[in-house]
């Protein structure tokens, strides 16, 4: 790698250094905007005992769900995990831990992790099971929970286009958790549909700045649709 060129040639190179027991922060919401290539590579590598921070855990046979097949995941930190029979099975069998985290709190924990903020207060979850074991505190007469931030050994994210420096933009709602996840990895791997030359993206329109991206790879994406809803033409 010379200068700021973050492009790597293969997913082998992209996930280099991933080890058993590590924490991975993944972008995506449902099956939308997920880092398909990195997930496939992790399955191929067979890395075990992973803690994965992601809003969802994919579905049976697609997305992060495929990492359950060989029991690679020790713990999921997610807001919603209800689309996956294998997940349920492993959870009930005690083979998988899950830390349910409200969606907004999860997004903010990733952002805070990347932004050097170790903890913040939110009203979300006060008085609910989410508050168990957490400190609460009153501000202006209302009770708030203290939530700690999250960082990962790796972050795996998916963007639409990025220049070689890792300056990236997202396509429609495939943005979701990706920009925050990108900031929160010690090593951040970004896969994209198209790599362009520096200068091709408008500096003011860049949504993830290259400073957050360590390894950039051009991928191919199935983009499976979870709930295909249409109207008559």
């Amino acid at each position, binding site marked *: 790698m010379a200068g700021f060129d973050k492009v790597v040639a293969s997913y082998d190179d992209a996930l280099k250094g991933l080890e058993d027991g590590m924490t991975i922060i993944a972008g995506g919401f449902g099956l939308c905007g997920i880092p398909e290539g990195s997930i496939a590579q992790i399955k191929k590598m067979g890395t075990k005992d992973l803690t994965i921070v992601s809003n969802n855990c994919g579905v049976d046979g697609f997305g992060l769900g495929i990492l359950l097949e060989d029991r690679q995941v020790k713990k999921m930190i997610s807001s919603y*995990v209800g689309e996956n029979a294998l997940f349920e099975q492993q959870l009930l069998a005690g083979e998988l831990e899950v830390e349910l985290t409200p969606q907004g709190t999860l997004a903010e924990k990733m952002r805070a992790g990347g932004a050097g903020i170790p903890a913040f207060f939110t009203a979300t979850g006060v008085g609910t099971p989410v508050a168990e074991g957490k400190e609460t505190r009153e501000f202006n007469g209302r009770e708030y929970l203290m939530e700690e931030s999250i960082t990962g050994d790796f972050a795996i994210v998916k963007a639409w286009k990025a220049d070689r420096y890792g300056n990236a933009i997202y396509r429609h709602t495939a943005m979701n958790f990706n920009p925050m996840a990108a900031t929160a990895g010690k090593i951040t791997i970004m896969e994209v549909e198209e790599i362009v030359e520096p200068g091709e993206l408008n500096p003011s329109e860049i949504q993830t700045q290259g400073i957050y991206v360590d390894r950039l790879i051009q991928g191919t994406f199935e983009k499976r649709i979870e*709930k295909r809803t249409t109207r008559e033409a």
Partner: protein
Amino acid sequence: MSLSRDQIAQRVARELEDGYYVNLGIGIPTLVANYVPDGMEVMLQSENGLLGMGQFPTEAEIDADMINAGKQTVTTVTGASIFSSAESFAMIRGGHVDLTVLGAFEVDQNGNIASYMIPGKLIKGMGGAMDLVAGADNIIVTMTHASKHGESKLLEKCTLPLTGVSCIKKVITDLALLEIKDGAFHLLERAPGISVEEIVEKTAGKLVVPDNVPEMAF
């Protein structure tokens, strides 16, 4: 007769105001979008990062990268904006959404809500519901008044794990419209042909019934 799902949505829609930014949960709340009064504009927020959600796409328009919080393929309306999950929940948590409509398993007379988990069954997770109930000043819960077995869902105290505390002020069920304040449900309107007695019978929590309870008209 008790309200249909669509009638519940229709009644919720009367609570809308022109220029409202609204988050509609999965299920009955989603149907509210079909009953926005003529000449009124509301904009739908979807917590995965979309403000200005439109109708479902045609087969030709379908795009895997354009979904809503229910993971359904959708379109955008003119003037929509798309943003990250952190920004989306900044809007929600910061109280910028004018109205949130969501379903529930139980609501109690102190405005507590349980909507995300039934112990013993699978834990699916709260998604954005906890953020939504904590962030909004104006929340309407839609639900059936009682379970299939006739057990009231409007309780003195929720029995299931809570989604939020003291946050629900309005409930629209298949039988009635109720306000929650001062530790009680206040009956405001009843479904056409539903007697006050039936509502009293099916409300386990403290219920305040005024002398006159108008019937909803559709």
